């Protein structure tokens, strides 16, 4: 039997009862649309989180911080703790070939009262001040848009130079001048704890692709975006989104200085002594091969245990945990979303079973006629299951068609969520689900119809 003819007859059957058919399709439409919508929102979120993971150094970055809490068997050695020092940095540079760009970092944050960043009466709200080496540019995934990074020479001479993020510029200089031009404060001075520092470079503005588009749009329309608003959509979001916000927010609020400059000119608490014993907030590095992360960590640990005389007064922080968090969060959301979409499709499927059963009981005589003129049981089975699939697939296609609208609508009602991304994979999955639903739903009615006795069926009124 000709499949095209069967499909055509399926469409005819749907057309003959278009109202009933569209009600039946509604379940499948909802199922497919919700599946795709859910997937789009989850995908959007995943992309944002992955983006922020990459922005904070990616999986390759390892950070080592001091740990005051020694393991139990070393408790009695607490007096010996010296924390992370420059000695560790050089030791790692020379003895840990699995890592590179080992970089010391001394952090200061402006919400501690001993740090003030000012210029002409303006001051910053929040600043992450870091004294480090030029390698930090790579470690922290910073990109200089204007000017230059400070150099080893700046560090050697402890020059009063700094590289700033755009939020610092916004706070101290403003974002645009009176002509609407972006302000680039290269070679201007800012004051850190009332000491002048020359801005030699400024990073690009870090933001999500979505925000960048919005900003360009707003600039075109001569609107200004309140920086506070820019992060507002994270206010009610979960911890992963807040993490994303922190990554972008703190990168934009960074001031980088040469390590020596920070230590010698701003750190009053710094003890005298050998340069090598300078205590660091943390040290960061990158592994050469992420697949060797475990081995690299072991190597770093071995080197540090030697420089720390066997004391485990340091701890590792990798982005792996963040990455796992992302995977888990996405998995959870996807599972719950699929569960809901699955229920919709199940209800849609049951609707189809119902309508197909009532449809065949209305058409017992037709089935008898078809059998009397030579339709085999398989022909009848094929016809009924095709009708069911045509019904479900039509619903699926409509579901596909309305899901962009649904996604836009939902996104506009919930501006706090991350921007959804529709993917072809999930459209195919959604569509396949409608085919599967149709086939499963058509099974029982089709078997029932195929089994009808032609004589009984012909007598049926």
């Amino acid at each position, binding site marked *: 039997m000709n499949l095209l003819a069967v499909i055509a007859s399926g469409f005819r059957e749907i057309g003959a009862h278009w109202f009933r058919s569209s009600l039946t399709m509604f379940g499948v439409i909802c199922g497919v649309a919700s599946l795709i919508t859910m997937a789009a929102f989850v995908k959007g979120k995943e992309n944002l989180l992955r983006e922020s993971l990459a922005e904070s150094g990616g999986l390759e970055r390892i950070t080592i911080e001091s740990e005051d809490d020694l393991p139990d068997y070393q408790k009695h050695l607490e007096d010996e703790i010296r924390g992370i020092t420059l000695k560790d940095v050089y030791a790692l540079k020379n003895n840990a070939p699995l890592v590179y760009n080992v970089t010391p970092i001394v952090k200061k944050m402006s919400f501690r009262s001993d740090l003030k960043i000012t210029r002409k009466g303006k001051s910053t709200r929040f600043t992450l001040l870091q004294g480090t080496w030029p390698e930090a540019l790579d470690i922290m995934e910073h990109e200089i848009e204007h000017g230059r990074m400070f150099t080893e020479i700046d560090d050697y001479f402890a020059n009063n130079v700094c590289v700033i993020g755009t939020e610092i510029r916004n706070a101290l200089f403003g974002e645009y001048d009176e002509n609407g031009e972006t302000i680039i404060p290269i070679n201007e001075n800012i004051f850190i704890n009332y000491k002048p520092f020359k801005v030699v470079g400024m990073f690009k503005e870090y933001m999500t692709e979505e925000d960048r588009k919005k900003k360009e749009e707003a600039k075109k329309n001569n609107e200004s975006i309140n920086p506070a608003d820019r992060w507002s959509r994270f206010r009610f979001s979960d911890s992963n989104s807040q993490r994303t916000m922190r990554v972008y927010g703190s990168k934009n609020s960074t001031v980088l200085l040469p390590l020596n400059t920070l230590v010698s000119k701003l750190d009053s608490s710094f003890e005298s002594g050998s340069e090598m014993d300078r205590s660091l907030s943390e040290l960061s590095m990158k592994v050469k091969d992420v697949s060797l992360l475990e081995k690299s960590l072991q190597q770093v640990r071995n080197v540090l245990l030697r420089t720390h005389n066997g004391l485990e007064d340091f701890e590792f922080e990798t982005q792996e945990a963040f990455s796992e968090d992302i995977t888990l969060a996405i998995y959870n959301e996807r599972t719950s979303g699929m569960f809901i979409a699955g229920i919709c499709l199940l209800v849609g499927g049951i609707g189809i079973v119902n309508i197909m059963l009532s449809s065949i009981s209305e058409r017992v005589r037709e089935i008898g*006629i*078809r059998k*009397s*003129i*030579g339709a085999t049981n398989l022909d009848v089975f094929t016809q009924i299951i095709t009708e069911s699939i045509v019904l479900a697939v039509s619903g699926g296609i409509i579901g596909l068609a309305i899901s962009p609208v649904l996604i836009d609508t939902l996104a506009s009602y919930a501006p706090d969520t991350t921007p959804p991304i529709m993917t072809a994979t999930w459209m195919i999955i959604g569509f396949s689900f409608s085919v599967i639903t149709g086939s499963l739903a058509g099974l029982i009615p089709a078997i029932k119809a195929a089994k009808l006795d032609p*004589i009984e069926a*012909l007598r049926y009124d």
Partner: protein
Amino acid sequence: MPLLELREIHKTYHLGGETIRALDGVSLDIDSGEFISIIGPSGSGKSTLMHIIGCLDSPTSGTISLDDVMIHNASARQLASIRNKKIGFVFQFFNLLPKLTVRQNVELPMIYSGLSSKERKQRAMHALESVDMEDRSKHRPSQLSGGQQQRTAIARALVNDPKIIFADEPTGNLDTNTGEKILQMFDKLHTEGRTVMLVTHDPEIAAVTPRRIEIRDGKIANEVDPKLSGQIPRFSANSVTSK
């Protein structure tokens, strides 16, 4: 070798513990080109006989061969194929599909025999021409008179060029005049060389056929066969219906 050969056909039903012998040892030969009627009151077993010969049902015991194929123990799939290619049915209630047009109804058997849509259309129009229905091909059954519907049904029965045509009370739902025309049509098919079997309870309708078999209580009670008796009681359709 006759077209149709029935030997000792039995058919029993079990209804609520009771055994009903619908057919009780029927043996019958039908040659190609015969025009034959099966007569009998309702409940006589004539419909059961037609269903068994028409491959809609299988006998409890006995053998049937149709066109040299043993059909009494054929599978459902084989029976469907035989119904499709070798048998044409015309029913009392026309049994056209209301949602399809006249032409689509006539095309239906060819869909199951897997013909291309072009060939289906061509043959359907040809069959409709033979029953003078070609100008109604785009109508739906509900837009046709009873006679036109029955002619469509005849076209549908003819379209796969069957070995035998069964007509189950084909005039039962028609007025006398129209019924007469339908019977004339069967007569014409017979003269064209087709094998036609009328099933009816009405002896007057049966009278149009040269050979008549009367079924009573599942057995052949009486048979008029011009070949056996030598007489030729050939009635014209007119002489029967225009009383």
